[in-house]
């Protein structure tokens, strides 16, 4: 009896041990990127003279001269800073660690998460009709927006441009006024971030917090409360961390607010509101393509979507490309061409014999519904590299602004080709064809992934030439991933890559002449 008990106990102990091991092996999964404060590779004290994207001059935005650090007003602010730092709570410390000394990181991350949250295609109603998200009734259903790739890249572009222009203004005033950091004024303050000796008036963190929050509120109106809360926490954390006093923050907020309203007034008039026309207009676009080329793309979903995704995205104002025509690719192969016949054969062959590696590539770059989209993926890549190379906040904002400008121009040019040529997808031309990626609701030629990725890779190659080869390989992989997925022709991917490179050259030319090199 005793013996049996003992045996049972051993078995029980063994099972319990197994469970503990099992539980221990299950690490907590990261719900945010692992960003930390870091040392900047440069301070760019001349960045106030760089050419902004939207502002004609940094002193378009006016802030008051700061009180000298010897003044009673400043000393009062400094005391308030020391007071709050003397009893930081755990949640305040967490906020300090979260926001880091590069304010662009978390705002970019927040934008990507909102894109992933809102990148849901509206489903059909009971009667088979579809209701589109409506900015005038953002609650829906369906909620506004549907953050598809053209929407996402535009949101990112306006946010990054506002950050960049705002920081050019900030740098202009920082080095005009040269107000010392709090820790320099009072050595008893030891800030939580690595100090980079950048003048603290106005606060670059406040510029980015205010500008990003305002742009994102316009792009994701249902998130206004969340964004206000994040911006407040960010602003407070700058004081908790000991890097800014209240007047640094206030001046930064003024710049952020002003630059956001300049960016948003461009956004309000850039034709995005007309990008999703009604069925009659959509049908006439389709008919023109059929008249021109003898083919037309059809949506094959059930129930059929009456209008493809943003047929008039091509009419949205580009940033640096003067006309659509100069970057429009050549016509794709005709329906009876040997090129198309060869491609059909190739796609069928891939579908029948897809390797695990091809499947993994198709999935890795898919960035489909419910994710942060291909432009979001390239933002993540950019952030990882700008941290690796120690870019300071204004360099970071510049990288992201040109990246997103180039990708938005790329998207506009790509959508022009898509609806100008209105080329059918593989599932439309190959009987009984099955795909491992979902076929999107817009024409095939050229591939959005290819154009976005090539443009993104070119800008990153310009900014980080050491890694150019890697970026370009990734862009090619993202392009071919769509062929492996069965939803694009090889010429969609190849011509799209060339198109992306060409579109990005306009942005890169602007970057080469902005005074930051």
């Amino acid at each position, binding site marked *: 009896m005793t013996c049996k008990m003992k045996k049972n106990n051993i078995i029980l102990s063994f099972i319990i041990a197994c469970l503990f091991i099992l539980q221990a092996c299950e690490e907590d999964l990261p719900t945010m990127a692992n960003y930390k404060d870091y040392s900047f590779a440069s301070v760019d004290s001349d960045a106030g003279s760089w050419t902004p994207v939207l502002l004609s001059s940094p002193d378009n935005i006016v802030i008051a001269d700061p009180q000298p650090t010897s003044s009673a007003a400043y000393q009062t602010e400094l005391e308030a800073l020391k007071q709050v730092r003397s009893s930081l709570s755990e949640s305040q410390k967490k906020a300090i660690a979260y926001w880091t000394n590069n304010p662009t990181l978390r705002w970019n991350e927040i934008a990507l998460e909102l894109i992933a949250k809102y990148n849901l295609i509206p489903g059909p109603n009971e009667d088979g009709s579809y209701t589109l998200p409506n900015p005038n009734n953002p609650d829906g259903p369906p909620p506004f927006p549907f953050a598809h790739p053209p929407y996402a890249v535009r949101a990112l572009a306006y946010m990054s441009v506002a950050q960049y222009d705002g920081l050019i203004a900030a740098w202009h005033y920082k080095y005009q006024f040269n107000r010392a950091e709090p820790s320099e004024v009072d050595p008893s303050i030891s800030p939580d971030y690595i100090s980079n000796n950048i003048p603290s008036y106005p606060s670059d963190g406040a510029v980015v917090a205010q500008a990003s929050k305002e742009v994102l509120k316009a792009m994701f109106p249902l998130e206004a409360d969340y964004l206000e809360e994040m911006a407040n926490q960010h602003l407070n954390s700058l004081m908790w961390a000991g890097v800014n006093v209240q007047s640094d923050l206030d001046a930064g907020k003024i710049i952020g607010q002003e630059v956001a309203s300049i960016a948003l007034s461009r956004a309000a008039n850039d034709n995005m509101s007309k990008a999703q026309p009604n069925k009659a207009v959509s049908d006439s676009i389709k008919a023109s393509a059929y008249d021109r080329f003898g083919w037309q793309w059809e949506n094959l979903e059930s*129930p059929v979507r009456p209008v493809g995704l943003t047929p008039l995205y091509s009419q949205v104002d580009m940033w640096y490309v003067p006309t659509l025509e100069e970057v429009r690719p050549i016509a794709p192969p005709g329906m009876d061409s040997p090129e198309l016949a060869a491609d059909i054969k190739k796609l069928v062959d891939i579908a029948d014999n897809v390797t695990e590696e091809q499947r993994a590539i198709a999935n890795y770059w898919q960035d489909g519904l419910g994710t942060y989209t291909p432009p979001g993926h390239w933002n993540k890549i950019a952030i990882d590299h700008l941290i690796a190379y120690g870019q300071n906040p204004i360099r970071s904002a510049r990288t992201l602004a040109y990246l997103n400008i180039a990708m938005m121009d790329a998207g506009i040019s790509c959508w022009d080709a898509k609806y100008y040529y209105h080329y059918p997808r593989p599932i439309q031309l190959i009987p009984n064809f*099955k*795909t491992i990626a979902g076929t999107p609701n817009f024409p095939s030629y050229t591939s959005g992934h290819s154009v976005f990725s090539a443009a993104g890779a070119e800008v990153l190659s310009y900014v980080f030439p050491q890694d150019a080869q890697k970026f370009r390989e990734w862009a090619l992989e993202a392009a071919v991933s769509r062929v492996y997925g069965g939803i694009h022709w090889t010429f969609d991917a190849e011509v799209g890559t060339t198109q992306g490179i060409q579109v990005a050259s306009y942005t890169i030319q602007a970057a080469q002449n902005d005074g930051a090199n």
Partner: protein
Amino acid sequence: MKTLKLLVIALAILATNNLAAQTPTDAILMGPKEICMAFTYQYGSWDQYWEGTRLRKNENVATLNQQMGAFIAAIGVHKKVNLLVGVPYVKTHSSEPNGGKMAGAKGFQDISFNVKAQVYERTFEKGALTVLANAGYSTPSTNYLSDYRPYSIGFGASEFNLRLIGQYKWNSGLFMRAATAHLWRGQTEAERDYYYANGSYYTALMDVPNAWEFNLVAGKWFLDNKLKVEASYVGIKSVSGDDIRIYNAGQPTNKVQFDQIGMNTQFFLPPIPWMSVLAFFSHNVNGRNAGKFTRFGIGTTIQFGF
């Protein structure tokens, strides 16, 4: 200590889905040096699924078909201990026509190992009570992609489970059985390094929620213990996880729950008593982030000594 007690009170093991005979959930044990091999084939389909708790259809999927061929062997290693090993082959596809044109998936799913032991037995005047415990482990036998709902053939993670089974069988052949199990599920690896599950995840790893399983069976043996007929209930209740988002594909992180009712029957062929045929049916009557499956299956078991 309380946790330990709860664990003890808790359950036993099990493997994968809905196998019908000689499974970790039933109260059958092979004698020492006996093997029972079961081969089953089942066909399941749904044309509606629960998106969160809302039942809906999706014409881009149309009807999701799932076929499963399973092999499971129960080996008597001791008069009160059996070892069970099994692996199913699963194939999925959409019915035609459908608006999505997505490829189905197929492959060997998870290999499972179970140890089932009789831990208590008492005979009464009118019947007998048997209590069994089962501990099991399963893990994907191939590199199938779990992050490919609704076509993926499994959740793609290892599972450890403990199950407790109690059965009372009357001398008349009538029996009632109840089983409960806790399923500890590990992580599955997606082929992307970011996903959204009520917030961002910066990893390819996805937590597959742990779950409780409940099983109730009422049945009777007829024809001199040659024919068994059972009515069953199976409940799966994930304890955590996110809901499928509107008109979006599911993913392995989802909180999967369902209530399934079914019928099982097994018949031992009088001329060949070492062989039986079986048939089963089940239907999901309620669920969350699950297909409203209806399944039919047939199978055979072969028993021999070694």
